[in-house]
Structure formats: structure tokens, C-alpha cells
């Protein structure tokens, strides 16, 4: 019993440290080959350019303007989607729930596309993304009504709302001028290639804010994962706190989707994996989901960037990597639920 406990603890520490390690490894991966030493010097020269005049400007630009924003984005989006998935699963008392099923992702994508097409790149798409993500999830809650704890009706409503917003998104593509459409090309596929500091200045704080809220609520999520009756009996203002959690997850998802498009599966797989390994207590699930999600995203993006000079949509990649891992672990623990 004790051996298992200390092993779990060690694993947890490893999981929390991994994103940090991967962060630095990811900075050294890219088409333009820079040795780790060269990278280190480039980092130093960013801090004080005068002391390292021999460092090529290209190295500095690559580190600061190309790789750093992209790796940060991978980290942030990975953590954001995983934590939001974990929170929604607790809230709706079902491990199959995630931000995609509830229509949040589709609403955010539609809003962001609408903004990009009609307001141009100058206006931050996160705003419209959040607006329509909130509309989507509101619609799901409203339509499924009192039966929101019943998963089937929630799932069906989510599918309907998702389909509706996907259709609206297609409509936007239809009316967009062919030039804007071509520019939207990558974003619609779901890609980190558009990561620039300008986008991050808006999205990172939003994601951070949402993550902080959910992190603080991590024990509360345990209580909220009880049936509404039980939660009420335990002294929780269920309606208010539910809205808070949903608002935070919607904010996170919208901020992430507005830059990278729709990336599915992460919010579903990562919390599952974490619960399988570390138990259901959200005091652990929330931070570990953030860490594991960040790691997964960075690894996926590293592979995409490192293997070829082409761009493979990362959404496809997370599924290709995540699903087999999930199946392996499912077999190993032989647990049906969590």
C-alpha cells in the first residue's frame, strides 16, 4: 500500500515537472537547426544584446519571435483544454463530457471566424469567440433543461448545437471573399502555426485567468460533482457556482480556439488518464491535467515541427497520439469507470 503511494507521488511530481523540461526541449526543435548551445547563447543575447554580438540575428528572431510564442501557446492551450475538460466532467457528473460536446468549441470557432472575416485581423477574435461560445453553452443548458444531469439529453443537445454552429461556420466560409478564406485556411484546420505575440497578448491572460479560477475551485469541483440534490444539501449554491465554472471553461476554450481552431479530444482524454493514474480527487486532477495536457500538446507540436517542414493540423495529431495511449492505459488498469 505504501509502496504504491510513494510511487504515485513520484509519478505526480514527474508529471508536474515534465512541462518545464519539455518547454526547454521544444525551444530547440525546429526547421532551422540551432544547437542547444547556440540556443542558450541566443537566449543570453536577448537579455543583453551587447554582450553577445556574434549571435546571428536570425537565431534571436527564431527563439524570441517564432519558437517561444508557439511553445507557450502549445503549453497554454494544452493546459487550458485539459483543465476545462476535467472541470466540465466534474460539473456534469460524466467523464465523457468535454468542451466540444457541449458546443463550446464550435460556438467559439464560429465567433472567431465571423470576427476574422468581417472585422479583419486587427480586431481580436477572442471576443466574438467568447460571445458565441457562451451562447452555445447557454443554448445547450436551456434546451436540455432540468435534465441537464442526464447525460443522453445533454449529449444530444450538445450535438445539435455543435452541428448548428458548424453549419453557421460553413456559411461564413461561403460568404468570405476568397482571399480572406485562403488566409483562414490554416486556422480552420486547427493549427499552432499562426502563433504570434499579438494573438498571445490577448489569449494568454484570458487563459491564465480561467485557469486560476478553476485551480482555486479544484476542491469545490469534488462537491459539485455530486448530484445537484446532494450538493445543495452540502451547502453549495449550486446554480451560482455552476455558472462560474462554465464561464471559466468557456473563457478558456474561446481564448484557445480563437487562435488555434478546434482541437478536440484533449479535454476528454487527459482528465481520464489523470484519474486513472491518480484517482478522482480534483485537487490532484486539475493541476495534473494542466501539466499533462501541456506536455501532450508540446510533444505533439514538437513532432509536427521536427519531422518535416510541412504543417500537419495538430488536432489530428492529438487524436492520433492520444487515443492509443488512452486505450493502452484503459487496458492496463482494467477499470470500467474511474
Amino acid at each position: 500500500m505504501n509502496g504504491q503511494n510513494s510511487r504515485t507521488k513520484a509519478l505526480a511530481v514527474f508529471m508536474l515537472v515534465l512541462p518545464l523540461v519539455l518547454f526547454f526541449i521544444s525551444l530547440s526543435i525546429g526547421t532551422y537547426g540551432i544547437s542547444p548551445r547556440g540556443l542558450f547563447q541566443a537566449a543570453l543575447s536577448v537579455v543583453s544584446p551587447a554582450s553577445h554580438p556574434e549571435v546571428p540575428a536570425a537565431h534571436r528572431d527564431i527563439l524570441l519571435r517564432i519558437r517561444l510564442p508557439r511553445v507557450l501557446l502549445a503549453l497554454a492551450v494544452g493546459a487550458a483544454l485539459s483543465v476545462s475538460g476535467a472541470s466540465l466532467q466534474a460539473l456534469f457528473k460524466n467523464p465523457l463530457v468535454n468542451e466540444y460536446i457541449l458546443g463550446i468549441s464550435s460556438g467559439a470557432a464560429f465567433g472567431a471566424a465571423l470576427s476574422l472575416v468581417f472585422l479583419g485581423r486587427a480586431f481580436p477574435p477572442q471576443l466574438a469567440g467568447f460571445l458565441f461560445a457562451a451562447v452555445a453553452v447557454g443554448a445547450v443548458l436551456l434546451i436540455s433543461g432540468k435534465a441537464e444531469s442526464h447525460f443522453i439529453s445533454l449529449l444530444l443537445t450538445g450535438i445539435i448545437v455543435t452541428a448548428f454552429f458548424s453549419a453557421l461556420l460553413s456559411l461564413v466560409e461561403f460568404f468570405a471573399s476568397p482571399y480572406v478564406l485562403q488566409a483562414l485556411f490554416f486556422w480552420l484546420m486547427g493549427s499552432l502555426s499562426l502563433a504570434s505575440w499579438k494573438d498571445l497578448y490577448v489569449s494568454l491572460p484570458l487563459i491564465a485567468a480561467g485557469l486560476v479560477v478553476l485551480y482555486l475551485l479544484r476542491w469545490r469541483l469534488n462537491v459539485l460533482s455530486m448530484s445537484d440534490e446532494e450538493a445543495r444539501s452540502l451547502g453549495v449554491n449550486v446554480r451560482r457556482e455552476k455558472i462560474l465554472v462554465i464561464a471559466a471553461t468557456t473563457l478558456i476554450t474561446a481564448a484557445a480556439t480563437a487562435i488555434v481552431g478546434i482541437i478536440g479530444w484533449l479535454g476528454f482524454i487527459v482528465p481520464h488518464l489523470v484519474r486513472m493514474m491518480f484517482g478522482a480527487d480534483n485537487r490532484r486532477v486539475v493541476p495534473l491535467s494542466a501539466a499533462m495536457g501541456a506536455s501532450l500538446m508540446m510533444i505533439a507540436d514538437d513532432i509536427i515541427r521536427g519531422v518535416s517542414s510541412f504543417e500537419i493540423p495538430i488536432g489530428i495529431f492529438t487524436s492520433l497520439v492520444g487515443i492509443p495511449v488512452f486505450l493502452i492505459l484503459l487496458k492496463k488498469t482494467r477499470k470500467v469507470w474511474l
Partner: protein
Amino acid sequence: MSIRVAGLEFAYPKFSLRVEGIAFETAKVTAIVGPNGAGKTTFLKCLGAVLPIPKGALFIDGRDLAALKSRERARLVCYVPQEHDTTFNYTVSDFVLMGRAAYISPFALPSHEDAESAAEALEFVGLSGFADRAISELSSGERRLVLIARALAQQSAVLLMDEPTTFLDPKHETELFRLIRKLAVEKKKTILVTLHSLEMAVQHSDLMVFMKRGEVVAYGKSAEVFEDSLLERVYDMQMKIIDWEGRKFVLR
């Protein structure tokens, strides 16, 4: 800790509950009995404000329950459901710890004192060794005890238990009633339980409430109010109460 029902009404689409002017006694065990669909569970849920109740309907310790914040309400009264749906496989100690929710602000974590309260509650129900076990691994009897432990950790003066002994085998049933008695005597809790078994009700409770079709038909000390004609009125069938070695049995 007095509970007074001033005028409680609750309507479902096909059924309505109406209870007026009843008060429950502190540190006593009151059994609520009646046929299926009499509204026992509904009544209990209303008492715990799990179902929405209007102002002026229910007073605990002189305070209008409907006017209180969720937190304060939970410190007064706790509704313990019959079963818990194990979606997430929390450990027993994590589960019991949730009972402290009324004392922890939403953005905070449980303190050391909270953990201690939870551990004490677990000990009181006799499950100290189960702290690290997962809920799904427990038998239904053990799970009931965990639910009670969580209610204990909540430290509310009033405990409302919905059919706590249904589906338990005789041994566990008796142990559970012993625990309930202990809660009333040692912890001075006001306890209301809904029961199906009339014999258990009369044996283990101090007071009894008889409900039928959403209304309270009779209320009083168990020994006094328990008689044939009442039973016939409530259950619409002939029953006979037999006294044997100080215990009451119902023949149908």
C-alpha cells in the same frame, strides 16, 4: 434545535404535499412512515431545502430556512440520500471530507481541522480503516455508513435520512439503527428517518409521523400512536399489532 413546519406546500405535476403546523423534537429520532407515494421523501427533501420551499414555511431554531444562505442552511440541516451514484471513484476520506463544504469558501481548500472532523466522523461510524478505500469497492451497507459519516462531518444539528435501512440485511439494519440512536443521544442530533418497515420504526424511534397522500395523518410518541385503527386508515388494509416480549409486530 427545534424544527417547526408552519405551512409547507410543494406541488409536483401529479402530486402535492401539504403539511401544516408540525414540530419535531430535539435529540430525538422521528420515523416518517406511510404507503408508497405518500410523500415521505418529498417531505424530507423539503425539510432539507433540497427542494425549493417558500419563505415562512419552515423554521429551524427559529430561523426561516428559506431565507438563509446555502452555507448557513447546511450547518443547520443535512439531507442524507438513500444511495449515491458513483460516477467518480473518490476515496472514502475524500468523500467524507465533502461534508465540510459548508465551512469552506468556494475558492479555498479544506484545512487541517476539516480533515480532522472528517476523520472523527469516519471513526464514529466505525470505518476508520476504510479511509483510503475507493467508494466503488464498498458494500452497500458500508456505503450507507459513509454517507452518514459525511453528514456527521457536516455537523448540522438536524439529520434527515431517506430510507437508510432499505435493502440492508438484518444485521446491518440493526447496527445502523444503533448508530442512529447513538447520534441522537451522544451528539444530540435531531433525526428524521423515512422507513418502510413499521416494526423497525416503532422499535427504534421516539416519535412517529404517519403520512398519506401528501398529508400528515398522525403524529406522536411511537408507543402511543401506534394502533390498529390508525394503521388501517393509513394503509387501507386490515392490520393487527401484536405485543410480544415488549416488542411490537404487525400482522397483515
